[in-house]
Structures are given as C-alpha cells and as structure tokens.
C-alpha cells in the first residue's frame, strides 16, 4: 500500500508546514524556464495556480471549457471567504479556524492539511486586497467581517453577495497579466478528455477544441487538475450547467484514487424546485442565515393552507411559527452547519409542514431583521440576493418570507492527494474542489474559496517544486510518443461511438433519470437497501444510454450535445461509485446520513471505531469492481466528539 503514502510531515501540528517547506526541493530559475505545467480549469484553484506558477517562471498551459477563464463556476460563490485574521478581536486564531473546520467536517479530514489551510488563510486576504479585490469595509477604512454557519466568531470577508466573483476576477487578472507576458498559453473552449502517462508519470493531456471539434495533444512535465466537483451527477444542482466530473474521472481511470465520493454537500438555502422543466437550482447565500430566521408553521392545518395557496405566511402569528433550528439547536440557532440545517428542513417537510405547493420548502424570514435593523441595512447587506430572488420567483422578500429548500451544492469527496496535493499518479496534481483533502464529510460556509486560493496561491507553487526538481533532465514531452497517439485514439473512438449510437432519446433524458436515482437513494438520506437499488438502476440506465442516446450535430463543429453526452457518460460511473462508497460507509457523518446510524432524536451518529478513514477507490478496468483502500485518519490534536450544535 505504498501508493497511499500521505507524506504528512513529522513534528508538532503548528510546525509541520514550515518544516515541510524547509525540507522539500526547490527548482532554480534557469530550470523553471524549461519546465512545462498544464493546469486544467480556471476557477479559484486553477487560475491562482496558473498565475502563481507562471510568476515563478514555469511555462504554463491553462485550459477551460468556458469561453473565458473568468467564467469558471467559482464566480458564483456568494457569501464570503474565511481567514484567521482575528480582526474582530473575538478570539479567533489559526487553531480555532482549524478546529472549526475539522469539527465542521465531522472528523473525516486530515489534521495536517486542515491546519495548513488555516495557517495560510490570512495571506490570501492580503494577496486579494493587493490585487484590488473590493472587499466590504467599515467606515474607518478597515476590512469588515461577517459570521457564517458552524462557527462562533466573525471571520468571513466578503464583497457584497459576490465574493466568489471578485476573488475569481482577482485571480483572473493575475492570470491575464501572465498571459500578456507570454508565460501562460491560454486555451479557452478546450475540454480535457484524457490524461496521458509516460513511464507511469503524468506527461500531458488530450483535449478537444470545442469550436472546431479537433482532438489535440498537449505535453508537459506535470499536470494539475483543478476542475471542481461532480455535483451535476444529480442533474439539478447549484453547479453551472457545464460543471462536470469528467477530467477527474479520466484521472481515476488512469490510476488516481478517488476518495470519499459519497461526501456531497446539500446546501440548505436554495430556491425550491418548480415543476419539471427546470434545468438548475439557484443558491441563496448562507450569509442570509445571519439575519433571516428559518421557520415552518406549528400547526399542520396552516401548512396545508399554505400549500394550497389559501393563506399568506404573514398572517401566521409568531406563536404559531416553529423556528425549528432555534428550537432544536439553541446555541447555534439559524447558523448551524449546512448538513444539519438541510436535514432539519427535510425532517419538517417530510412530516408534512412544508410550505409550497409541493410541500418541499421552508421559510427564511427577514421580517425580524428588518424590524430590528431597518430595510436599508438589509438592502445594503443582501440587496443583490433579494433582487435575484424576486426575479426568479416574482415574490418580494422584503414583504414576504423567502421560500427555500436544500439542493446539491459541493463535492467534499474527490481525487485523493497527499500532503503535496499530488495524486497516486506521479506528476498529476489535484487542487480545489477537485480533491478530497480539507473538508471531510461537510464543508463549512466560506471555506471553499479559502481552499481554492490556498491551494493555488500558497501550497501547490511550493510543493510542485519538490517533484519537478527531479524532472529537470527530462526533455520537453514528445506529443508524438505512442502513449499520446494511443490516448488520442481512445478519445476519438469514444466520441465516435457516442455519436454513432444514433438512438432515440436525448442526453438530458438520461441525465434527468440518473438525477432522480441519485436524489432518491444517494441524496440527503441513505440506506443499504436503497443504495443497492441505486447501483442496479444506474447500471441499467447506463446500458440503455449506450444503446439509445441520440447525439445530433456534427463531430467537427461546436456541438454542445456531444460535450454533454461525454460528461453524462462519466456521471453514470461517478454516481455508481458514490453509491458504492455510501454503502461501504455505514455511519452517519457530515453530509452523509445513513438511516441505520442515527440517535434516538434523529441526529447523525458517527462510528469512529469503524470508519475513521478516508475511502480510496482504485479503478480496476471497465466492468470490474473497484478496490477499496483505506487511509486511516489519525487525530493527535483534537478529541473526537459527537458533533453538537445544541
């Protein structure tokens, strides 16, 4: 099992990263110029990595499927970014951020990685401010903070409700500067379809030019995958329409282990599903829970009237409102972590207290905050979110409560990486949401942006040198090597196969079917019987897909249906692995809730004795069952307790 060497440095927790940096190799400037790195994905992780690596002198090629690197889905993150600055003097610290993240993740992440994340977090804020990110400020000119779910301090920095946009534009601007200098070659509208290995090491990728349809080969000394999460396996999610798991999945098929795939985050505050024509779900930032109170009616007859549209929520007096989060979790109230808030909403709706026509929504009410602070304060804090809500639902949230319901949002699981962020394939790195490393079984709000930028600005640029220092004698990769020819052929064959099925049903038809299976059996609540059923049903629908999918258009032209077909084909496989992983993990932790493992009050019950490990799945070829390896998690600095937000 030498493959699973996590390379966590020796020494006390607070010294591990500095000791590691002192111990790893550094590449000289003269040699950096000769080394090429491919970065796939240009979100916070990819853009910050590509820019920082190019600044160091490496030759970088960056790829994104979007028409511009600025459009990666990090752009849609709303609420904020955490950092242990302790600007509020509320006793925040690196250790507290580390502890909150480990606890929030339900003790299923690595201590050393999480500590390092907290340790570099203050540098991220410094960096972003220097780039011109217009964070919210106090009247004295200093940076403002807000509070987020699952923590008791205010450490979240924000740029209105568009923090992800502003941070990504900061990274994109840094990337643009390197493109202009010729240090980064940018390939927009290019999709990575395979990773190429030579002598066991990652040496390049095969990508499709989405405009011409041409399949092209690109060589490098290392490949960095920063392609985000696989939440779209559920069809409906808060991810962008193009977000996909295919790049990470190709890495898996080439030997990179996939870890904790069953850990996906269900975000409690999304706009509920309407009808069956919907294509995606819209998130309402978690920051809204700072000032909004979540409730459903106490009386079932009120809920029934609301469902029929016969009653206005404002006509339900306070004493008939069940502020169920405040009731169940008095110490954290509306700011419990996402997994807890999502399950509590589901519990109320399943019990018949849901408030929209489908009975699948709860209220998020700003009446109390508006009474307390005035409308103008609420408008300044959340104006753009309120506007977005009204445009979508035609309801004015200043006058009537918002309706919200949980939706798939983020993938904590992902490619396994060691402390250097390298996968089990030498020279292949995975950063940001694409890897598994920092969020355990549940991610805290405002920590995704922190992790993406930590990996890209401050971790990978150091750790990649340790590997590349041994590659300085390796000449420029020859893209005519047989490995490239073979990989290109496999990619072309697969696309042609999809295209030539010429069946009767659209890609979306299959994607929606898969989404239903995933939501019903691998969603907010899971059990062994359902998971086994899911695996069987996914296999059946996949078989039907490969016989009956219809891909229109041309191979050698812009063809969104062909792109989708390839991604959905991978989603079947990802969904199946998620179900397998969920079946193996017969405990409830974080976003993963197994009905077999709950307390009498219905709270999640972890089983540390049996499951304090990272599941690491190894691909064993098409049609063969994957093999499960386990990386045991060792906790030396925190004591494992049942997570309580009561």
């Amino acid at each position, binding site marked *: 099992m030498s493959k699973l060497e996590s390379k966590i440095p020796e020494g006390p927790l607070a010294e591990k990263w500095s000791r590691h940096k002192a111990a790893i190799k550094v590449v000289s400037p003269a040699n950096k110029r000769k080394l090429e790195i491919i970065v796939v994905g240009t979100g916070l992780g990819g853009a910050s990595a590509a820019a920082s690596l190019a600044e160091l002198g490496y030759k970088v090629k960056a790829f994104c499927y979007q028409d511009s690197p600025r459009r990666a889905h990090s752009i849609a993150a709303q609420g904020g970014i955490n950092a242990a600055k302790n600007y509020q003097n509320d006793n925040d610290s690196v250790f507290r951020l580390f502890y909150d993240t480990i606890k929030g993740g339900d003790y299923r992440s690595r201590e050393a990685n999480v500590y390092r994340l907290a340790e570099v977090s203050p540098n991220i804020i410094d960096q972003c401010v220097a780039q011109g990110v217009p964070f919210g*400020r106090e009247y004295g000119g*200093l940076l403002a903070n807000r509070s987020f779910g699952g923590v008791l301090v205010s450490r979240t920095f924000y740029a209105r409700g568009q923090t992800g946009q502003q941070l990504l534009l900061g990274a994109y601007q840094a990337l643009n500067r390197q493109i*202009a200098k010729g240090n980064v070659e940018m390939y927009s509208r290019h999709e990575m379809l395979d990773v190429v290995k030579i002598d066991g090491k990652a040496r390049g990728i095969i990508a499709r030019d989405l405009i011409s349809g041409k399949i092209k080969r690109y060589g490098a000394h290392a490949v960095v995958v920063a392609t985000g999460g696989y939440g779209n396996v559920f069809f409906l999610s808060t991810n962008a329409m193009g977000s996909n798991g295919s790049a990470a999945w190709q890495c898996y098929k080439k030997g990179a282990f996939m870890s904790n795939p069953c850990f996906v985050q269900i975000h409690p505050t999304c706009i509920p599903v309407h009808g069956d024509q919907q294509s995606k779900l819209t998130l309402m930032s978690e920051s809204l829970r700072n000032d909004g109170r979540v409730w459903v009616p106490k009386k079932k007859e009120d809920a029934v009237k609301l469902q029929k549209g016969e009653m206005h929520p404002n006509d339900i007096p306070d004493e008939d409102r069940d502020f169920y989060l405040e009731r169940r979790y008095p110490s954290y109230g509306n700011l419990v972590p996402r997994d807890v808030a999502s399950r509590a909403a589901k519990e109320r709706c399943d019990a018949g207290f849901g408030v929209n026509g489908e009975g699948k929504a709860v209220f998020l009410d700003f009446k109390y905050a508006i009474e307390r602070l005035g409308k103008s304060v609420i408008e300044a804090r959340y104006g753009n979110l309120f506007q977005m809500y009204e445009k979508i639902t*035609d309801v004015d949230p200043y006058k009537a409560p918002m309706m919200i319901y949980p939706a798939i949002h983020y993938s904590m699981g992902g490619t396994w990486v060691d402390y250097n962020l390298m996968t089990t394939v030498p020279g292949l790195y995975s950063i940001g949401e694409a890897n598994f490393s920092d969020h355990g079984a549940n991610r805290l709000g405002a920590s995704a942006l922190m992790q993406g930028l930590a990996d890209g600005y401050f971790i990978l640029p150091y750790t990649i040198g340790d590997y590349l220092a041994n590659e300085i004698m390796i000449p420029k990769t020859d893209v005519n090597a047989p490995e490239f020819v073979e990989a290109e052929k496999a990619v072309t064959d697969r696309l042609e196969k999809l295209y030539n099925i010429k069946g009767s049903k659209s890609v979306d038809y299959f994607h929606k079917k898969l989404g239903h299976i995933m939501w019903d059996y691998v969603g907010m609540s899971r059990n062994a019987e359902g998971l086994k059923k899911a695996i069987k049903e996914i296999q059946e629908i996949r078989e039907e897909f490969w016989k009956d999918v219809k891909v229109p258009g041309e191979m050698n032209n*812009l063809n969104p249906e062909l792109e989708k077909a390839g991604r959905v084909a991978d989603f079947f496989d990802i969904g199946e692995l998620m179900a397998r992983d969920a079946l193996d993990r017969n405990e409830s932790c974080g976003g993963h809730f197994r009905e077999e493992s709950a307390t009498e009050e219905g709270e999640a019950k972890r089983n540390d004795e049996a499951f304090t490990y990272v599941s690491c799945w190894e691909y064993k070829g098409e049609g063969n069952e994957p093999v499960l390896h386990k990386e045991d998690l060792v906790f030396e600095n925190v004591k494992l307790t049942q997570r309580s937000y009561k």
Partner: protein
Amino acid sequence: MYSRLLIYNRKSKKMADKILKKLNIKVWRQNNAADKGKFETYPIENISTGSSFLEMMDILNNDLIEKGIDPIAFDHDCREGICGTCSLYINGRPHGPDTEVTTCQLHMRKFKEGETITVEPWRAKAFPVIKDLVVDRTAFDKILQAGGFVSVNTGGIPDANTIPVAYEDAEEAMDAAACIGCGACVAACKNSSAMLFVSAKVSHLAKLPQGKVEAKKRARNMVAKMDELGFGGCTNTGACEVECPKSISITNIARLNREYLVARFSE
C-alpha cells in the same frame, strides 16, 4: 387579510405560474463562422411562465432533437446571472425585455401568449459568430490582458489592513467591479463600443489605492487595445447603461476619459 391574500396571489409564483400555450421562436441559425446565416421560426407549446428563458430554449432544443433538427447552439453556464456567459439579443434588446437581468434570469412571465420572440446573437465586428447564437468574446479577454490588473506577484504582501480604504471608495470600486463581461454593452451600442466594459475595469482599479499606481498606463493601454480590436467609439447615447444587467453606470466612462486624458498629457 383578504386584500393581502390577493397581493400574495399576484406576487406568489405558485399562484401566478401560467402556461403559455403557444409561442413562436424566430431564431438566427448559422452553422459556422463562414456560413451566411438566416432566421428560422420554430413553434413551441406549453411553457410555464415560471420557467426561465433558457429553460424554454432547452425545451425547444429537445423538441428539435426529437424531430432530427440540429439543436440551437447558445452560450450559457451558471444560470445564476453572474458568469456572464449567456448572451442573447431578444426582441431587439440584449438579455431581453426585463431590466437588470441576464438572459438566464429572464423569465417567461415577461412574454405574452402567442408571441413571436426574435432571438439573435450579439452583433459586433469584434464579436464574430461561432455558431447560431454563440459569439467569440475573446476580444474582452485581450483588452483586460492589456492592463486590467494590478502588477503584483503572489506572496510578500503586507497585512491587508495596512492601507485603509474609504468605505465610499470601496463601494464605488465594487459597483464598477460588478461587471460580468457579458458584452451586452457592446451589443446595445450602435457603434459597438466597449467603453462601458473598459471603463468599469479602469474605474474599479483606479478607485482603490492598490490600483491607482498604474492607473494612467492602464487606461492608455486598454483603450489602445480596444481600438485595435475593432470596437467603435463612444457617442454618449447611454444605451449600454440601460441594457447592462449589472447597472454599471456611464459615469465610469467619464472617469475613464479623465484617466485617459491625464495619461495622454503626462506622456
């Protein structure tokens, strides 16, 4: 109670969602950059007014696929109004007949039963059509590469609170930084000018002490690149501001002109 209930019914989605029984979608079809292109009209039935415009396009495309017609290519991604990918020119307006929204946030309740909706790509020399409604906006990336950044490398940065920034400056910078780079300003402008886009970035950075250092050079280089890429000049019609989904103000253009003049005089 009764009157409030009525208000809720009018404002509530559940009660307000209706079905548009029939619409005609008149849409630009162009197979590739070299193709001449033409309009085609497709009927579509039973669209919920609660659906977004792009969900309607998805449904139309599924109909077309079933009928063996090549589906319509259009750009879209986040569907939350923030990535700036979607770009349709609907009934003669960029992002269609609603204010302060992108096409993905435009909902079908803005259209009438039986209506013929005309859908075109952005039309500008600097944004050539790739296919159907998809255009090439890399010109925007190139403008920003010419100077839309602060020249700092990663690392070695002093504490973020070292330089205080006035609340109002930060807010104004944020107003300008809210630009999503969709190109509606160019599509709305009779001259296909990119001045609103360029001025938003110049203003955003010029308003902050971190960006002020290079303000002159930035304005000069970005304007030169904009001209080079074939965008037109600004004649102050203000169409860009009206159609901007993020309400970027044309006062930014005045600021850009000021920065630009200062830059020219100091040459």
